[in-house]
């Protein structure tokens, strides 16, 4: 049954994005907010506002029982979790199901399965999706050398029980494997009381590419092309673009089919993203993980395909089958998104909450702004620092960069510091223009050179 009344269990720009998508489909909206979010743009535009609790997320946006209770009491027949918060916690779809509320996302058991890295890896392997070449448990230095010689250098010696970089050694040749083996094993033994090791290929300069998928839970899975999110700082994406023009067509096809095969193997329902490392030197892709929700950077895929992914999410949650075919989804042009964070890049990207005294975004063809901020809006210290996403769309990457540079220059923000000026510098840098970046480029080369 088509969704009639939707509960939005999120805040910020994505809550507003969901309100707009729902309105476009004639769906009534109810938003659950914390006390300090009563006057946010999404609350102003939603049909009904429910105050969940105090500002602390644990007592509002992160309380699944409270949220599902509010959805039920307001007569909602569906619930959209957005991203972050409870979006990938199986408890939310479980509680929704108990109350007969359609969850806008995959089933609880699928979220659970994909959330476990080892299980997801096993699943990917079964679906024929390429993984980073790695060994099983390695017992002797001799075995380690043989395996490393076989897959090629550099390699990573990793603790089976590892985490947080402990018990991890990078080896560039056989001699380093020999010396690193005992070091890593001793470190692992000391840290985890378990000295077992395995070996994985180390990709020093990888790009992050990911495939947007939609499944209807009725056997159909489609992909909406890939995104390149290689501009990262501490594993947080700063700039995302679509398509990944650095990837040759053949590999791109393999990327798409791998993502679809993985999703098909679990009869995936709703929106998801399959993330990969792209080893540019070797021209290979390796599966990382699946994000079982809509992602921050979905707008770039919408720009190049002309599809409204959030509306599709709501339609699928309402039981609709995907009426599109893969051949209907044609990628055209180039889109780039900048995440505007209320952070001070000159002070170690320290978050700076505050009052936005001026907010004058650029306007024009091919410029899209997904943001909940308005002049006079408060950016509270309680939540994520993202205040919006500036997205440009043009016929080519070069044209998109040019448009983005102008859009950034035209964007006046006062009252809070943001990462927007830094974005302007990144996209004008030679490496970015040449598209010769990788996931550690920003931290290793760009930021130290500022």
């Amino acid at each position, binding site marked *: 049954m088509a969704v009639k009344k939707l509960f939005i269990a999120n805040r910020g720009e994505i809550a507003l994005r969901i309100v707009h998508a729902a309105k476009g489909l004639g769906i009534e909206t109810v938003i659950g907010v914390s006390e300090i979010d009563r006057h946010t743009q999404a609350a102003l535009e939603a049909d009904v506002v429910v105050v969940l609790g105090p500002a*602390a997320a*644990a007592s509002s946006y992160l309380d699944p029982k409270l949220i599902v209770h509010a959805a039920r009491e307001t007569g909602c027949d569906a619930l959209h979790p957005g991203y972050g918060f409870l979006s990938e916690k199986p408890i939310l779809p479980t509680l929704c199901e108990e109350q007969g509320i359609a969850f806008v996302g995959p089933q609880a058991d699928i979220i659970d399965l994909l959330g476990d890295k080892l299980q997801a890896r096993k699943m990917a392997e079964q679906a024929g999706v390429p993984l980073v070449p790695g060994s099983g448990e390695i017992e002797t230095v001799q075995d380690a050398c043989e395996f490393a010689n076989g897959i090629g250098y550099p390699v990573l010696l990793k603790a089976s029980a590892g985490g947080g970089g402990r018990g991890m050694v990078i080896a560039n040749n056989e001699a380093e494997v020999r010396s690193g083996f005992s070091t890593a094993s001793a470190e692992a033994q000391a840290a985890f009381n378990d000295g077992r090791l395995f070996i994985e290929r180390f990709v020093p300069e990888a790009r992050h590419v990911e495939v947007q998928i939609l499944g209807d839970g009725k056997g159909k899975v489609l992909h909406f092309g890939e995104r390149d999110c290689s501009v990262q700082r501490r594993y947080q994406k700063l700039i995302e673009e679509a398509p990944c023009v650095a990837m040759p067509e053949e590999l791109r096809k393999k990327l798409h089919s791998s993502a679809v095969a993985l999703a098909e193997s679990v009869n995936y329902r709703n929106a998801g993203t399959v993330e990969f490392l792209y080893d540019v030197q070797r021209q290979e892709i390796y599966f990382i993980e699946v994000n079982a929700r809509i992602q921050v950077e979905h707008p770039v895929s919408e720009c190049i395909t002309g599809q409204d992914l959030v509306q599709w999410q709501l339609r699928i949650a309402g039981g609709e089958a995907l009426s599109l075919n893969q051949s209907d989804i044609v990628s055209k042009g180039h889109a780039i998104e900048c995440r505007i964070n209320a*952070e001070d890049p000159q002070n170690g990207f*320290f*978050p700076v*909450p505050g009052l936005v005294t001026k907010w004058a975004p650029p306007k024009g063809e091919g410029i899209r702004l997904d943001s909940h901020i308005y002049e006079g809006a408060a950016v509270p*210290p*309680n*939540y994520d*620092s993202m205040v919006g996403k500036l997205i440009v769309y043009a016929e080519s990457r070069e044209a998109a960069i040019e448009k983005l540079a102008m859009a950034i220059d035209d964007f006046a923000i006062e009252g809070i510091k943001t990462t927007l000026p830094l974005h302007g510098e990144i996209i004008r840098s030679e490496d970015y223009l040449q598209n010769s970046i990788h996931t550690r480029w920003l931290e290793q080369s760009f930021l130290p050179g500022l």
Partner: protein
Amino acid sequence: MNTYEKLEEIIKQFQDGEAKELHFKTDDLEVYLSNDRDGSVSVTTPVQRPVGSISEPQPKSSQKEVEKPLSPTPAHLVRESRQKFEGGIEVVAPYMGTFYRSPKPGAAPYVEIGQTVAADTELCLVEVMKLFTAVRSGFEGVVREVLVEDGDMVEVGQALFVIEEKL
């Protein structure tokens, strides 16, 4: 009883009693206590140690006994000493954010009252926009007061703990 327990006992008796002033001196310690007009109590221990923490109005007669700090505690970590625990140093919030006493919900607090802490012992977390920063005292001492409730929003410079510096 060690020296500090003795001192505590003396102060307590002084506060409970009716005396206006008390001055006593031993080989390694000199104490001047005074009940001034607004009822607050001042304590000075003119030994070689930072006295940046002591900012209550000093009685005139003891002014000359207060020595210059040798290595002052960083100004942002020091605020006026409070009445509840005299002579302690307040550890303040480095920025606005949410105060957490434990590393994660349900876990034991980083520190308890009475606990001895080193300069680099983590006392709490302050979170702003999902960025968590551990707060440390920067000196060795004993936790005497916890001034904020777990989960409270704190302002920059707001006192979080009172710590008695260990000499």
